[in-house]
């Protein structure tokens, strides 16, 4: 037996192992996605069946089963649009109009995105500031932390319409009220995560800093802040989707001029189901993109900080 014949099977084994890992990872997900799409098509046929059949009967045209079946796939106002209709409407909304036309999904997404990002930044700054205060003051930790937790028991989104009304009454309109709602929603996970992060250093490490007679500011910048970074990004990922939800819901009571929330509202008022679903897809894409961006930044920061 030569050494090559000894190593060959091993290499093939790792090759197969790698392929198996891919298979094990993606096949189940792909199966589930395909199953979901299949269920969706079946449900679309089932739910739109009566609608399409009634339409045929009203027009008193003769029809066959296959006619109805075809009808359920491209009804104009279906109860449940088929997946390809939604994708078509989404692609049409994104690419079919100039980006700033009022029918373009890009325009509406940008409106929502600006409120989301501004609210996210405000909320993140506020949350980090709160966490700093809480970590440095025992009184605030005892007195403020329970109320911060209680503030999240309030269904905050219920506040959205009043915020809009109140801020509108004192002359604030447009971007800022929506962002404030987003900020109110998303500061909480950041504050809680950062309190955990700032207190995560080992007592030994803090004592070491003390033996070097480090000031509390030095302890913050050289020890607490770096060790809070993983917590920061974990909570930022949670916060950015919450911020998006806040921006969307904040658009509901404004009566719907622009934005994904306005698109949802007008879709539901005028029975434009396909438009409604396309707006939902846009929201989903936006949410995934935002999480992806935060993840990229996290990887960049981690590699700058020397993680592998």
């Amino acid at each position, binding site marked *: 037996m030569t050494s090559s014949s000894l190593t060959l099977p091993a290499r093939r084994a790792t090759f197969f192992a790698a392929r198996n890992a891919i298979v094990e990872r993606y096949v*189940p997900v792909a199966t589930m996605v395909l199953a979901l799409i299949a269920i969706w098509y079946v449900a679309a046929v089932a739910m739109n069946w009566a609608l399409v059949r009634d339409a045929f009967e009203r027009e008193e045209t003769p029809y066959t089963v296959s006619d109805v079946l075809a009808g359920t796939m491209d009804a104009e106002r279906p109860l449940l649009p088929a997946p390809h209709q939604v994708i078509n409407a989404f692609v049409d909304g994104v690419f079919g109009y100039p980006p700033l036309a009022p029918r373009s999904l890009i325009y509406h997404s940008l409106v929502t995105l600006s409120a989301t990002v501004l609210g996210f930044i405000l909320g993140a700054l506020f949350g980090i500031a709160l966490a700093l205060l809480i970590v440095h003051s025992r009184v605030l930790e*005892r007195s403020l932390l329970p109320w911060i937790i209680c503030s999240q028991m309030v*269904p905050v989104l219920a506040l959205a319409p009043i915020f809009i009304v109140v801020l509108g009454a004192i002359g604030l309109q447009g971007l800022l009220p929506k962002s404030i709602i987003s900020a109110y929603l998303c500061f909480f996970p950041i504050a809680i995560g950062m309190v955990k992060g700032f207190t995560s250093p080992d007592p030994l490490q803090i004592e070491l800093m003390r033996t070097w007679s480090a000031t509390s500011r030095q302890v913050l910048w050289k020890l607490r802040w770096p060790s809070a970074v993983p917590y920061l990004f974990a909570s930022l990922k949670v916060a950015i989707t919450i911020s998006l939800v806040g921006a969307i819901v904040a658009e509901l009571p404004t009566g719907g001029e622009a934005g994904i929330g306005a698109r949802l509202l007008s879709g539901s008022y005028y029975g434009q189901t396909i438009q409604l*679903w396309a707006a939902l897809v846009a929201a989903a894409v936006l949410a995934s993109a935002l999480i992806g961006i935060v993840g990229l930044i996290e990887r960049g920061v981690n590699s700058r900080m020397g993680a592998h």
Partner: protein
Amino acid sequence: MDPRKLRLGFLLATGAIALAFVLPIAPDALPLMARPYLKEIAGAAGLLFLLAAWFADNRATVVGLAGALLAATASLALLNDASVAGAAQAGFWMIVLASWLSVALSLVNLAALQKLRRRAQQAVNLAVPLLFGATAFYLWEVAVRGLGVPTVLLPPPSAAATRFFASLPTLAADFTQTFIRGVLIGYVIGCGAGLLVAILAHRYQFLARGLLPLGNFFSALPLVGVAPIMVMWFGFDWPSKAAVVVLVTFFPMLVNAIAGLSASGHIERDLMRSYAASPGQSLTKLYLPAALPFIFNALKINATLALIGAIVAEFFGTPTQGIGFRISTEAGRMAIDMVWAEIALAALAGMAFYGCVTLAERATTFWHPSYRT
């Protein structure tokens, strides 16, 4: 706290009360000196602050709080005078300042207490946030009424409370519609379905590997956006709200329960196998108990999500009751005190719900390290 700082703070509070006697309270109002009862109350508050400054130790906490209570009473009584409300001047704000300062000092003093017996420590832990909240509400009330902020913008908490107790029947109807019918039914179905699917996924690993990434993806989506679709499918009444709640609560429960069911250790599993336990037995005796902390985590997350989902779904159409319906219509009629009463109702319901879940968690996962301190 440093006694010298404490002494200085309480002396400042005393000085503020003294200034309140000299400075005008409002343009056309009687000065504090000319008011019977109130001048005695304010004077007593000033004396108590002086006493607290004299003590400057733990006794100062009690005396300072008593003084703050008196000063707060005096300022609230002044606000009942129509000539003060909305036109308050420096003298009035001095009383508020003294009250706030002494509460803040007492709180700092109280929170710094250490090495207490367990009961006393618990009482302090409860008292500090409660006092903080009471102060916040007091400042809100005084600021809104003293500055004369229009009720349409921000009503004083007392107005919202009055409205709350005046319209209890309406609130009860809204509560039943939104909470009992929409939230609770949807919550039970959503969490139950999530748990069932997680148990299935635990039996068939293929399902778990496929569902976990999808579950993570869906629980990050703005799912409340499906509310208008559910209203279209299930009508205006509570089933559509329950459906939104089901959808919103399903994925967090799925993801958490799948993680929890695989949380038991290898040794325990081997032990179950050596006992020749059937899959059902090891599920009920090992996997589910080990998953309880994760399940309760999901139940807690879902408690807030469910309430939000139901209220948002009501913005898209309801019969003529429900918390979300009332909030949007009353906000449109500028009856902001009713809106705040509804918010208080939602907050109370949310906190009670969360509290119940936490109590159940304590009762069932008492063995978990986080409670065995």
